[in-house]
C-alpha cells in the first residue's frame, strides 16, 4: 500500500523521523552518535560546551540541550530519539526522564501510569 508523507504527518504527539527531520537534525544526531565513543563521553563530562562546539551545533541547539528541552529538540530540532537518548550516558537522564518531559510530566507522574516500576 502506498502512502504519502502527509499521511505520516497526522498522528498527534508524533514527529515522524523523515527526510526533512533528518536533514534538519543532522548535526544534532551526529553529536549524539559521537557519544558511542568513551573518549567523547569523557570529553562531554569534562567540558560539554567544547564538545557541542566541536560538532558545530547552533546556538539554539546548544541552548535547548542545556535546558534539556527534549521535546523541542525532537519536534523542531530533528533529533532522533534513538540517538538523543544516548545523552543519558553523560547527563544521567533515563529514557523515562526524557519521556516524562515529552509528556509535560514529572518522572513520578509518568511512572504512576505504569504497572511495574523497574522494567521497561
Amino acid at each position, binding site marked *: 500500500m502506498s502512502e504519502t508523507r502527509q499521511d505520516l504527518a497526522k498522528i*498527534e504527539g508524533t514527529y515522524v523521523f523523515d527526510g526533512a527531520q533528518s536533514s534538519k537534525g543532522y548535526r544534532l544526531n551526529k553529536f549524539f552518535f559521537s557519544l558511542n565513543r568513551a573518549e567523547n563521553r569523557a570529553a562531554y563530562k569534562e567540558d560539554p560546551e567544547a564538545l557541542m562546539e566541536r560538532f558545530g551545533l547552533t546556538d539554539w541547539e546548544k541552548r535547548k540541550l542545556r535546558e534539556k528541552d527534549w521535546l523541542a529538540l525532537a519536534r523542531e530540532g530533528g533529533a532522533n530519539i534513538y540517538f538523543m537518548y544516548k545523552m543519558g550516558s553523560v547527563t544521567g537522564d533515563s529514557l523515562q526522564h526524557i519521556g516524562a518531559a515529552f509528556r509535560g510530566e514529572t518522572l513520578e507522574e509518568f511512572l504512576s501510569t505504569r504497572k511495574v516500576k523497574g522494567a521497561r
Partner: protein
Amino acid sequence: MGRIVAGIGSSHVPAAGAAFDQGKQDAPEWKPLFDGYRPAMDWLREAHVDVAIFIYNDHGSEFFFDKYPTFAMGVAKSYPPADEGWGPRPLDPVPGDPGFSWHVAESLVRESEFDMTVCQELSVDHGLLMPLPLLWSHQPEWDIKVVPVAVNVVQHPLPTARRLWKLGQALRKAVESYPEDVRVAVLGTGGLSHQLHGERFGFRNEEWDRRFMERIVSRPEELVELSHHDYMVQGGAEAVEMIMWLGMRGAMSPEVKLVHQNYYAPMLTGMGLLLLEDTASS
C-alpha cells in the same frame, strides 16, 4: 541442503540486556520476561540450529545518517557487541559464518534482486544482542552462528511491510539453495507496541500486540497489507519496526506450528516472543 527449522519473533529492549548482565533474571519486574524465553531456549537446543539469520535494526550504534542502508547484511567471521553509549556489553563477539553468509548475499542480490549492502565489519546492538543469549547459550562460548540482516526502520522512507515479507521469501530461497546441510532459524526482532518520542511517549496497545501475534501465525497476509501509518497509529510510532517480524514469517512455510509464546508489558514496550516450527521441514 539448507533447511529452515524455526522462526522466532522477539522484542529487543536495551534495558532487558542490561538486566541480563546484572543478573536480574529472577527480579520480580524482570522474571516474567526472562522465564518466557526458557522454553524457547530448551526447544531450540533440541532443534540443533546451526545458524540464525537475524532480521533486526541498528539503533544509532553502527550506522549513521551519513550513509544509511535500507538493507545491510553481515558476512563477517564475528560480530562484536556495539558500544551504544554506555560501553559494550560484556559478551564475546558473536560468531558468523562467512561461507553461508556470502551464499545468502549472492542469492539475495542475483536471484531475488534484493540489493544488499554487504558488511565485513559490523558491531551489533540490542536489536540482535538482547534476544540472542536468551535463546542460545553464550557460555562457555556462543552455541550459535549468526547472519545479521539490518533493516532501516528508523529514517523514513522505510521499506514496506510487503517488502519485508518478500525479503523473508528470498531468504528461504537462499537457505534452500545452499548445498551443505545447515539448519537455520530466522528471527525478526523489534516491537511490539511502544512509542518513545513526542507527547505520545509511552503509548502502548496490548490488544493490538496480542492480535498481531495471533495473525502472524495464521493470517500474516493481513499484516503484510498494512501501511506504516497503520502500524504507528495502532502500535505507536516506534512500533513500525514490527514489520521485521514479517521478514521472519515470509521465510517460513505457509503453515507453521506454534511452539511457544510469551507476552509481558510492564513499562514502555509490549515485549513479545513467538517461536514457530516450520512444517515443511518436519
